[in-house]
């Protein structure tokens, strides 16, 4: 593959009009002069040509368009990546960058939503579903050229499972409460032992990135692995098995990745991937700024767009060189929820008094019946969302329970439910409970999320028709999180959750009591409501059932219980919206997160050498 330093460097400087001038002698000098300037600003090295494919290298051939090598793709991050260490990274920007720097054994293809081989060339499962034997790719290398083998795999899982390291990955690698055991069987063969059969075992390995033992073993022995690889210290020292490696990081401005010349994927014509020389993430703090920069041509990719911004972009689509994707319902669900925590004696007596209403199934069902979901879809999302009555979104075609009823909005049904629960209307229309106190509560919103604030305003108006007096309390997002997860000092709020996977297992965290995202009651009341115990039991049960149809039946029951008892009142699922510049090809947008950037190694520029317009 020819090295194309000139085009890459010039593109980055946006002085690139020069490079489309025909190369006569005078202009050549001009280009060379410019090139000298850009090279000195952008470091010393042109992107390294990919290594020739070695005969014994076990590469993975992927299907898809055959692309053109070279060029730089410009994307954006909402904030600086806080931590480029896969062991401890938590924040979204870091995870976005890490997904390009590292690779896992078995990968979930975000487009097909199914697992596929990655660093694991193949694997076998024992008949009882508890033992996995994995064959690794041979003779492939980390991005610093160091060879990869079973020791790296054993080292990575040892680190992730070490309780002293406090890696967030550890929780994901527990099966039946017990950690997965890893054994080395040979230089390219490892075995994983599970405590009990686990339906989604292959999916455990996704995003459990393989670490380079030769770089991190010393830090691990010194007990300092959590501190290794913060982006502030020498980010070039990071080596992984992903398609890219860090080239340069300017805090607050950008992080530039360059192609990993040793990457282990090739296209159908045996060209080593990735096609792009560089991926630059500009740090753009707000969504509006992202949209303006995309519209102005500064960004090549907008991985997610709000419905309103989509409308703005769509109006200009005819005159501007970009295309937009509306992929329909994604995996995100927005919901209203009440504080159902066990506040015992120490909680605010006012909130505890109101919890008597919140705990009534009829109360929550009445609220759900009164909410005009169609209006939310229309007014908040310009029609680019789907109303929801259960937590599994239509985007999850495999697992959604289509039997869940979709009752239309009915104030009469809501009023009847409230009446059955002992509520009544005063002469002035105010709804009062059995003790005669008016029904009045507050919904926490954060002004930084305009969509949720608008949803709350619509709900406020809807519930006023039932005689409920609802206040909106604007608070900074972190303050909302603190109240919901720590102090439990709130009455109701609106939040959204998005599963990163189609499988029900990540939802265990949300739906079983004691789960980390059991939002409405992290401090679970005693005794548990009967339906909650049922959900707990069913969610545990489905993890060990290996046949899809049997699992689906169990998960359908969970969805029915959740929809029937409304611990959270599901409202809408926003459509997945993305935008890509026309010059970028190889795009296969997916409804799961990293909608456009999930296959960055296969993205390419239609004319990598030409100017940026």
């Amino acid at each position: 593959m020819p090295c194309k330093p000139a085009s890459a460097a010039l593109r980055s400087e946006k002085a690139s009009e020069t490079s489309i001038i025909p190369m006569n002698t005078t202009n050549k000098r001009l280009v060379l002069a410019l090139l000298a300037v850009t090279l000195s600003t952008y470091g010393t090295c042109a992107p390294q040509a990919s290594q020739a494919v070695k005969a014994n290298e076990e590469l993975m051939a992927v299907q898809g368009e055959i692309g053109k090598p070279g060029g730089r793709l410009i994307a954006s991050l909402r904030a600086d990546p806080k931590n480029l260490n896969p062991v401890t990274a938590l924040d979204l920007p870091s995870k976005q960058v890490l997904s390009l720097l590292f690779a896992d054994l078995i990968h979930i293809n975000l487009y097909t939503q199914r697992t596929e081989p990655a660093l694991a060339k193949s694997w076998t499962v024992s008949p009882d579903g508890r033992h996995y034997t994995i064959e690794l790719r041979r003779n492939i290398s980390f991005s610093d050229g160091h060879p990869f083998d079973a020791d790296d795999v054993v080292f990575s899982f040892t680190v992730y499972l070490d309780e002293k390291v406090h890696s967030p990955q550890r929780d994901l690698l527990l099966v039946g409460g017990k950690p997965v055991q890893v054994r080395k069987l040979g230089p390219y063969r490892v075995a994983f032992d599970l405590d009990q059969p686990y339906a989604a075992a292959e999916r455990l390995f996704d995003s459990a990135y393989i670490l380079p033992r030769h770089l991190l073993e010393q830090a691990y022995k010194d007990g300092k692995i959590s501190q290794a690889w913060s982006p502030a210290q020498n980010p070039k020292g990071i080596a992984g098995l992903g398609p890219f490696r860090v080239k340069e990081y300017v805090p607050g401005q950008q992080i530039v990745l360059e192609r990993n010349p040793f990457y282990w994927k090739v296209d159908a014509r045996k060209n080593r991937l990735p096609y792009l020389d560089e991926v630059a993430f500009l740090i753009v703090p707000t969504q509006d700024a992202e949209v303006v920069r995309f519209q102005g041509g500064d960004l090549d990719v907008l991985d997610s767009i709000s419905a309103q911004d989509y409308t703005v972009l769509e109006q200009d689509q005819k005159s501007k060189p970009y295309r937009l994707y509306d992929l329909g319902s994604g995996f995100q669900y927005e919901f209203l929820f009440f504080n159902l925590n066990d506040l015992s004696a120490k909680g605010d007596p006012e909130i505890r008094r109101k919890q008597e209403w919140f705990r009534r199934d009829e109360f929550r069902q009445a609220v759900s019946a009164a909410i005009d979901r169609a209006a939310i879809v229309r007014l908040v999302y310009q029609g680019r969302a789907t109303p929801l009555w259960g937590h599994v979104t239509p985007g999850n075609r495999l697992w959604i329970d289509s039997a869940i009823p979709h009752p239309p909005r009915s104030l009469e049904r809501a009023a009847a439910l409230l009446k059955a629960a002992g509520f009544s209307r005063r002469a002035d229309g105010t709804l009062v409970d059995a003790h005669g106190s008016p029904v009045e509560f507050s919904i926490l919103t954060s002004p930084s999320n305009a969509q949720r604030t608008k949803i709350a305003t619509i709900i406020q108006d809807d519930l006023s028709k039932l005689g409920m007096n609802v206040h909106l309390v604007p608070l900074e997002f972190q303050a909302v999180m603190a109240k919901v997860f720590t102090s439990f000092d709130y009455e109701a709020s609106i939040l959204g959750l998005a599963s990163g996977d189609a499988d029900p297992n990540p939802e265990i965290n949300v739906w079983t009591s004691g789960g980390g995202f059991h939002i409405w009651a992290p401090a679970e009341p005693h005794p548990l409501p009967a339906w909650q115990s049922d959900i707990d039991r069913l969610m545990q049960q489905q993890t060990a059932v290996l046949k899809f149809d049997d699992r689906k039946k169990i998960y359908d029951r969970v969805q029915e219980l959740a929809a029937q008892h409304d611990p959270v009142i599901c409202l809408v699922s926003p459509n997945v919206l993305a935008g890509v510049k026309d010059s970028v090809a190889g795009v296969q947008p997916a409804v799961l997160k990293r909608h456009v950037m999930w296959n960055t190694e296969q993205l390419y520029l239609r004319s990598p050498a030409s100017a940026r317009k």
Partner: protein
Amino acid sequence: MAADRRVWLAAAGLALVHLCVLSAGLLAPYDPEEQNRDLPFSPPMRLHFVDSAGSFHLRPVVHPWVAFMADGAPRYQEDKTRALPIRFFVRGEKRGGGTGTAGRRLFGVDAPAHVYLLGTDDYGRDQLSRLLYGGQVSLFAGLLATMIALSLSLLLGGISGYFGSWADDIIMGSAEIFMALPWIYLLFAVRAFLPLHLDTRQAFFLVISIGGLTGWARPSRLIRGVVLSGKQRDYVRAARGFGASTAYILRRHVLPDVSSVALTQAALLVPHFILAEVALSFLGLGVGEPVPSWGNMLAGLQNYYVLKSYWWMSISGLALIPVFLLYYWLSDALQARLSGVAQ
């Protein structure tokens, strides 16, 4: 005198604005909280005096909007087949739990159609009604906060200037501290600690009192200066020599000097506090939905798509301009009169 006439002109202009806002119950065609979910972001309707046949009517008509989709965005078109004559003194309805009142409305069209002379917002609420009711909140927040700030500064500035010594040191010292505090950040912090059950009315008074409490420092320094120079005049010394009491001197000699300064200050402070309310509500800290204020009406403009596509969402910002100009003219004219008197 020219300055006098300007004072009266500006004051009359302001009185008219406040009168309009006060009679929102009559002038506003709808309840400001009434949502018309079928017509979000509909543009202002045009009044037609000339019908399609070209003949002139004294009673204007409006054509209702019909929504259609174009380039993926909802657009509106006038339905020329239907003409809604504007009727005067129609009966209005109160919405349960809302801000508006029942009774006669100055104008309207036959229900169930609506007339939106300034368009609608993102929930299909009438912008004209929200502008009028929102003015009640914003303009009177300015007036009330000015009253609080001015009475505080009269009291503290007066004490400081008249009695001097340690009282002066303490009061002027704390005034400097007040001026140095970063109020916006403090407000964010205070909001997070407030009880959840703060309703809109309480939030409104909170905004006013915070405005008033923070605003006393600057005018009190001015008033202290006036009092200080006033009490050293020869005729004040003479009065004291004849045995006049402190109260008599304050009432008779010092207050007249102070009052004109205070009036000029008031004319400057009111727009300052209106702006403070607008800024706080814009940030979501002031008056909350669904009660309108000129600040929270502008909050939608934080979104790029609103700013780009719907100009009538900035109507309350536009309304601020003449109000501010009138207040500044008034303050200028007062200042001119003051210096005229001094000469």
